[in-house]
């Protein structure tokens, strides 16, 4: 048996041309399929959303008396003013997303869906809500109006002093 015959025999036993081409085709289809999944996922995630702006002006600070809770219906945010300053507290319940209501008589924020209760600064009093209501970033615009950014949550102790 010559060297070349032995070499051919070894190559044949490892992988045939047909198997190699089948594997290449299967691999190419696999890569294309994976790419199609990624492309479809990106197609399904909208790039432009026609949703309300998450940043809004809440008017002049003088509109809000000290120790008051004001519900902004359009933005679903409570503007809370205490001795320390201003807080912007989310009105969306941390349980399942219902809109909570400020109950001045009980000095409490209550959720109509499943009965969660919060203090006026958003601290959780009673479940089923898992967390306290988040505080949004609140700043002053150059012309002296309150500016709330709902995309940015801040620590509850950070108050805006005016």
């Amino acid at each position, binding site marked *: 048996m010559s060297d070349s015959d032995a070499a051919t025999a070894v190559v044949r036993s490892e992988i045939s041309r047909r198997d190699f081409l089948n594997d290449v085709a299967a691999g190419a289809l696999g890569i294309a399929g994976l790419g199609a999944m990624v492309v479809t996922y990106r197609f399904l995630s*909208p790039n432009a*959303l026609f*949703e309300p702006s998450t940043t809004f002006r809440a008017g002049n600070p003088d509109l809000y008396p000290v120790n008051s809770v004001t519900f902004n219906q359009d933005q679903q945010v409570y503007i809370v003013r205490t001795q320390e300053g201003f807080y912007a507290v989310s009105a969306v319940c941390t349980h399942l997303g*219902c809109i909570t209501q400020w109950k001045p008589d009980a000095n409490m924020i209550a959720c109509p869906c499943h009965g969660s209760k919060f203090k006026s600064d958003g601290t959780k009093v009673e479940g089923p809500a898992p967390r306290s209501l988040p505080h949004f970033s609140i700043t002053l615009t150059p012309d002296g109006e309150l500016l709330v950014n709902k995309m940015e949550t801040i620590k509850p102790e950070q108050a805006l002093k005016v």
Partner: protein
Amino acid sequence: MATSSIDLALNRLRETRAWKSIFRRGPARTNRTRSLAIFGNIFLHLMPVKVREQSLRARATYYLGSFSFLLFLLLTVTGILLMLYYHPAVPQAYLDMKDLRFVVSNGVFLRNLHRVGAHAMVIAVFWHMFHVFYRGGYRPPHEFNWVVGVVLMLLTLFLSYTGYLLPWDQLAFWAITVGTNIISAEPVLGHDVRFLLLGGNLVGENALLRFYVLHCVILPLVAAMFIAVHFWRIQKDGGLTLRDDHEREGHERQD
């Protein structure tokens, strides 16, 4: 065997060339040709050629699976008719729903038939599932068809849930808000799944359109495919689960 004039007329019809071209065979007079008539029909070939007499009795199934399927057909027909008056857009969807109730002739009948039918289908599917479960229908050789049935039960629930948003009223809006927030509670993937399902961060126009497409196209097509497999597997797995004790004994006594 008494042959009525209707049978005679049918037999003459089955001898015609048009009948034979459509059904590929003439009248089925022997067991073999009767079997071939079932095998050779694209719709009937999902069904068994022969069934045990016991599995046709009301007590064997209470026809709950058939009832679920008939409700699926009813919901498809009424749903397609409702689609002719419904635009999945904000706020037109709500106005169209009101028009269907107060302006369109028989619209309130169709809408209520679709709604009550949907409730009935959920009840029928669950009743069917419990009935099969208590008869041990999940055991081999039926275990794969049991899993197909569970998928069909989930599809029924998804169809109900996606249809719930379409009237675009307060109930629909808050139900979907709460429901999709439950999805986002799922670890790691939850928020992405919610974003994809709603096509955004809140229940808005994109969400309505996506739920409409899911409800009217994607879920019914997937359900139809699973229903076909479900029917076909009953036959392939050797028929319904009969209870070992009295049903089989009764069969022997009859023989």
